[in-house]
């Protein structure tokens, strides 16, 4: 760590023209008879593949899917690289290739140093085994050696806070204890390159904070290289120095984190002002609640008016409620681009029946500062039991408007309210 930090940072990962092809349907044939038939016709009697349909009648189930196409980039030692992109853009495939779990179809990855990839919490855990036994087996599975585990064993136990249950099979643990123990093992890995998939964001808020804190330590204090995939652009902004934006398997942009994230957000902006779902099955939610629609409606005085801080914003939502006679309260959380919560606006609880429920809430004009914001909606039962938390369902950006004020510095603060002042001159003498 010491010597090479003094010299300019070196490449620790070089990704060269990586492509990954998934043959949908073709591999899935999964029967030997079909494959032998194909092989016989193709290789022995030189006829066309009997299962290959001509281009005039394409079979949608056997289309090729390029999960990644010709992706090249380099990661320098000590970089914290965030990988962003919408669902299915190839983020996880890329991590799996660098972690040696799947093979690329073409291309090459060169790397230097020990890699630990965390694509899941509790890899290698087995319910029947005790906490102690699981620390070892999970540690070894993730690539620690005996010395490392023995050295860190007490720390891991301390960190997880499960001393008393160390010799209890983990199937008797609460889910919180399980996650704490699993994370304690992960937190004590000491790889040169740490690869983390967004699964880490699955835990509760406290757990996420712990994960992010640990990852920040790893990359900033210890100078290790981190590759991090997340949907949470806020987390990426917080943690990473560089970002890589994948779009449909191709490298769209790579560079300084905030710039790439901004461009990415701008590209998805038009979608994220409004989201709706036609069928219940596709809608986000769970057995209690599913969202039908969520929309941010700016009250623009004219259609050409910019979306700036003078515009009142109404957040409209519509959801299916699946329970009769249930007491619901809706909360609106507004976050800055950097992930700080600006407000948590809770509705009063009221009783509702099965069916569609619509609502709206307006953020007044001249309240927010310019910048990017995220809205999350939480639906609680009986004011405190969380039924569903729809995170970052809306993202928007407000332009600046200064009017007659001739000053162009960055306006401080997350909000820019215009609370009235009362100012008067109370004396005319300076004595």
């Amino acid at each position, binding site marked *: 760590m010491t010597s090479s930090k003094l010299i300019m940072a070196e490449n620790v990962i070089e990704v060269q023209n990586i492509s990954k092809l998934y043959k949908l349907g073709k591999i899935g044939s999964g029967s030997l008879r079909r494959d032998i038939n194909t092989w016989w016709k193709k290789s022995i009697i030189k006829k066309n593949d009997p299962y290959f349909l001509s281009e005039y009648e394409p079979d949608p189930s056997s289309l090729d899917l390029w999960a990644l196409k010709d992706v090249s980039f380099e990661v320098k030692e000590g970089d914290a690289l965030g990988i962003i992109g919408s669902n299915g853009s190839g983020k996880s495939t890329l991590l799996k290739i660098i972690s040696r779990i799947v*093979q690329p179809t073409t291309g090459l990855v060169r*790397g230097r*140093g020990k890699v630990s990839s965390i694509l899941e919490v509790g890899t290698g855990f087995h319910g029947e085994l005790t906490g102690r036994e699981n620390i070892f087996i999970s540690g070894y*599975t993730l690539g620690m*050696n005996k010395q490392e585990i023995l050295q860190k064993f007490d720390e891991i136990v301390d960190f997880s806070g499960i001393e008393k249950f160390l010799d209890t099979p983990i199937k008797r643990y609460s889910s919180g204890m399980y996650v704490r123990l699993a994370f304690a093992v992960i937190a004590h890995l000491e790889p040169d390159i740490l690869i983390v998939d967004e699964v880490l964001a699955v835990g509760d808020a406290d757990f996420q904070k712990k994960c992010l804190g640990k990852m920040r330590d790893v990359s900033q204090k210890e100078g290790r290289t981190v590759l991090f995939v997340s949907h949470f652009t806020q987390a990426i902004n917080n943690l990473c120095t560089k970002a890589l934006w994948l779009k449909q398997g191709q490298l769209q942009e790579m560079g300084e984190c905030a710039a790439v994230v901004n461009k990415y957000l701008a590209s998805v902006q038009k979608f994220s002002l409004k989201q709706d779902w036609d069928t219940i099955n596709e809608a986000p939610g769970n057995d209690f609640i599913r969202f039908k629609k969520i929309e941010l409606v700016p009250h623009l005085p004219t259609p050409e008016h910019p979306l700036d801080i003078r515009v009142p914003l109404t957040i409209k939502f519509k959801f299916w409620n699946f329970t009769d006679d249930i007491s619901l309260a809706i909360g609106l959380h507004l976050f800055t681009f950097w992930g700080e919560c600006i407000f948590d606006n809770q509705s009063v609880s009221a009783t509702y029946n099965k069916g569609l429920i619509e609502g709206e809430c307006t953020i007044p004009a001249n309240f927010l500062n310019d910048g990017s914001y995220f809205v999350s909606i939480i639906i609680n039962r009986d004011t405190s039991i969380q039924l569903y938390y729809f995170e970052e369902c809306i993202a928007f950006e407000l332009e600046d408007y200064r009017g007659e004020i001739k000053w162009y510095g960055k306006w401080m603060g997350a909000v820019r309210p215009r609370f009235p002042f009362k100012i008067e001159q109370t004396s005319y003498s300076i004595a």
Partner: protein
Amino acid sequence: MLSSEKKTTWVIGAKSSYFDLNLKELLSYYHLLFRLVKKEFLINYQQTLLGPLWVLFQPVLTTVTYVFVFNKVIGVSIGGNLPPVLFYFSGIVLWNFFNESFSATAKTFRENIHIFSKVYFPRLIVPLAAIITQFLRFLIQVALLILLLSYFAIFGGFKIHLGWHLLAVPFVVLIVGLLSLSIGLFFSIVTAKYRDLSNFVDIFLRVLMFVTPVIYPLSTVKESIRWIVQLNPLAPLFELFRLGMLGEGTVSLFQIAYSVVFMCCSLTFTVLLFNKQGGKLIDVI
């Protein structure tokens, strides 16, 4: 403080070569190997009434059944003048070792996909751990076989043969273990790709048992059809095992050589196939 000079470099490419076996890497995971073996033992006997005694129960019960059915009811000849209990028990113990190692190895991909899809380590560790687990169980069963031998020697007038044949026993165990590894690995790859073939594994094992001298000695097989049994590379190994342990068995040096050559060829073939296919299978399962 680690010095960065010691960092290993690695390359991930699109093609995996047949000759990719990285023994050094494999060895560096030996801790994981032994933990997995320990895990198997712990999992199997946690929350059970009889615990590790099951290792002995299963072959004992099978032996009792075989002695009763084949010896008393049907009257299958076991040739020679061995006590039937020793004859069947020795066959069952070795067959179990092969059978269990084979079945466990053949499930490598299907049963570990949840780990394989989340973390990298040399995949060979898993089948190796399975074989070692079965080997340890086999050792416990052999201990019981030795106890039985002593019992029959003291009370049944059975004469223990101590000779060079005894040296053949560890050799037989090694070859049987490697054979089960190689055939099991082959099936683990094939059944991961073609799921319907996993039904075939059970049938294959059942048929294989009948062409292996487990419940009969080779000497009682008719000359005209003996070649069928002799084609089976396991046959001379079972005969040699009985020859070593009990002092009776029909085997020639040529047949042993055949088994060894067969094992070497199939092991080379499947390890090469495993190297070539192992990385790609994750997309298919």
